[in-house]
């Protein structure tokens, strides 16, 4: 017995694998938020006047919100007040990069360590990667190949320079700068992110992928992603994220906007593994993210899949606005909280068009002192005749100190709609573990197997290679969490 306890202790103290810091010369702007900083960011990126104006509008709105103490408090998460003047809003590796060959070798080694080789010849076939390090995009692979098909994929800053009309047309069209506290902050100070445009009728032949890495200390990361699938286009996009281990918490407030026109499809998958803090809840990333997709066209489809294992706080509701008739929204989620992690996550499905359909499948796993909340809204608007929604929210508890909560909101304004909701809560029992161990499967492997079985319906929505990564991540994150 004592032996087993020791093993568990050793495993709980297992290090966060991605917690290293890269020693790289960085350029940082003055600490704190001010109009000057917003202007500096915009100038740094040689942005057109309209974009600076947009940022400044957001900045002013944010100042009002800050003055009015409007930081949202409705989520079931607790954290000390964030001092928005005590962080850096821009950090970037000092050397300006023109191509992959010029990338600082130190930086390349960082991505290698993360298992994301950026050198194209070595890269996994069929995945194009855009890598964002602190505030800027450092490399995009497979660019030329994609351009042959008319697919635009690269950093947001670059898109502003090369395709200003597209950016201007769609930026803020799904998440306006005034949308919510954190989206407003992002709109003022966003530094970079990814941009993708798939032209009419083109099915993107490879997964597009962005890896985000926060490296610098006391720096917020505010990336902005915009993906547009034109008529009849399809793209599958994956985002992954990691950060070093640090004692103080860091803010990550990203915005993702997706637009799908007639008959277009966007599949957006996330494996979020930001630093979760240590076993006492010290440090970790505050992940306050706004993700929303607009099914603007008829028969368009947007599908969100997320595996959330990192961050000390996750506040995130990838949503779909189902505007086009017969459009489809999907949300598949696994959220795991262990130690002192807190997650308040879910989705919003806004049915506006006729015969719109949505599916919500949420799997929450709580271990240690973890708090896991599902919060979802299904709104069927007046004109959404024939709309259908199916929601299923399952919670799995490991141990007795953790908690799971479910807050499903339903607003149905059309009688000719069907809405179904199912929810379950279960616990990994001593009997399940003993059954596995009696068959020769170790305790660690048994927990991992049971959790993966619980999440199976969500994991199978992930592209193959990421499903494997996600499965391992779930296993590693839970090691030692059952005593």
């Amino acid at each position, binding site marked *: *017995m004592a032996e*087993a306890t020791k093993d568990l202790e050793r495993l709980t103290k297992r290090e966060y694998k991605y917690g290293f810091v890269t020693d790289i010369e960085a350029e940082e702007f003055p600490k704190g938020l001010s109009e000057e900083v917003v202007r500096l960011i915009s100038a740094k990126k040689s942005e057109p006047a309209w974009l600076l104006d947009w940022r400044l509008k957001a900045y002013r709105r944010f100042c009002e919100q800050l003055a009015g103490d409007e930081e949202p408090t409705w989520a079931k998460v607790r954290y000390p007040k964030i001092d928005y003047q005590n962080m850096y809003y821009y950090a970037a590796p000092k050397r300006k990069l023109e191509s992959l060959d010029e990338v600082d070798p130190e930086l390349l080694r960082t991505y290698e360590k993360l298992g994301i080789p950026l050198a194209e010849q070595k890269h996994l076939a069929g995945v194009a990667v855009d890598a964002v390090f602190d505030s800027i995009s450092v490399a995009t692979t497979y660019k030329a190949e994609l351009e042959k098909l008319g697919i635009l994929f690269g950093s947001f800053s670059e898109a502003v320079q090369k395709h200003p009309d597209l950016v201007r047309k769609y930026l803020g069209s799904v998440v306006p700068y005034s949308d919510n506290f954190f989206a407003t902050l992002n709109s003022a100070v966003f530094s970079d992110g990814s941009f993708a445009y798939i032209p009419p009728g083109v099915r993107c032949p490879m997964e597009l992928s962005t890896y985000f890495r926060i490296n610098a200390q006391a720096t917020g990361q505010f990336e902005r992603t915009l993906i547009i699938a034109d008529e009849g286009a399809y793209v599958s996009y994956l985002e992954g994220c990691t950060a070093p281990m640090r004692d103080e918490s860091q803010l990550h407030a990203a915005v993702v906007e997706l637009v799908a026109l007639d008959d277009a499809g966007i599949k957006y998958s996330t494996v979020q593994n930001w630093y979760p803090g240590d076993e006492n809840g010290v440090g970790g990333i505050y992940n306050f993210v706004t993700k929303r997709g607009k099914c603007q066209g008829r028969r368009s489809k947007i599908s969100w899949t997320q595996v959330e294992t990192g961050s000390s706080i996750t506040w995130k509701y990838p949503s779909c606005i189902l505007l086009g008739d017969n459009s489809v929204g999907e949300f598949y989620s696994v959220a795991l909280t262990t130690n002192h992690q807190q997650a308040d996550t879910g989705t919003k499905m806004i049915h506006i068009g006729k015969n719109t359909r949505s599916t919500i499948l949420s799997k929450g796993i709580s271990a240690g002192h973890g708090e896991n909340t599902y919060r979802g809204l299904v709104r069927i608007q007046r004109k959404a005749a024939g709309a259908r929604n199916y929601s299923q929210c399952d919670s799995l508890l490991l141990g007795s100190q953790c908690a799971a909560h479910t807050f499903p909101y339903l607003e149905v304004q059309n009688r000719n709609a069907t809405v179904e909701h199912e929810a379950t809560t279960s616990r990994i*029992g*001593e*009997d*399940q573990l*003993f*059954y*596995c*161990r*009696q*068959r*020769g*499967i*170790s*305790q660690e*492997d048994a927990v991992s*197997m*049971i959790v*993966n*079985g*619980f*999440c*199976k*319906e969500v994991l199978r929505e992930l592209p193959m290679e990421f499903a494997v990564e996600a499965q391992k991540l779930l296993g590693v994150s839970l090691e030692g969490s059952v005593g």
Partner: protein
Amino acid sequence: MLEIKQLHAVAGDQEILRGIDLRVRAGEVHAIMGPNGSGKSTLAHVLSGRPSVEVTRGEVRYQGHDLLAMEAEKRATAGIFLAFQYPVEIPGVSNLYFLKAALNAIRKRRGESELDAIDFLSLAREKMKLVEMDEKLMQRAVNEGFSGGEKKRNEILQMAILEPALAILDETDSGLDIDALRTVAGGVNALRGPERSFIVITHYQRLLEHIVPDYVHVLAGGRIARSGGKELALELEQRGYAWLEKEAAAG
């Protein structure tokens, strides 16, 4: 193979086993009978290493090792198998995947090579015939939505695949109709051999008509109240347990 000496065990805050002595040699089949609450299942759990049962006194030697010092998965590796009275459901994990993971975990710990999917599937198919199990059940999640009979068959199938040295069957006959009972017993009998021992826990003599034991022990009040040959089971069937319980209480 197995030697139990003065075994005492506590589950919850109750002392369930109060001094069990039992010796099982290779190739023998021992039946353990007794009324509800006499400690039959607790004995099965102690032998297979359930953490929630605490041994307070006594010793168990298995193949020359101190069994009580071994963790459940190590015992499985050493060839101890428990067919559960209430097999557990594991949603989302296919039966086939579970069995392959179990077999390979054991093989790996023994320093043997792991079976790949193809070899495992042909092994599983061969053993499925033994318990007349439908292949469809292998694709379903472990025990999820299985009938009582299917769950018990699945336990015997697992036993057939893992090929234990000592198999403990905990009321495998409960909830089985007569055909299922015959199939399950047939599966067990096919596995009998000079190197493999069985401890068969049951309430009823009925099972022992199909799996004929070498010895029968009656558990009452946490001790073995009486041991004998297969005829003891018949006597119990006629006289019930009450007289033995009285004896145990008096002793």
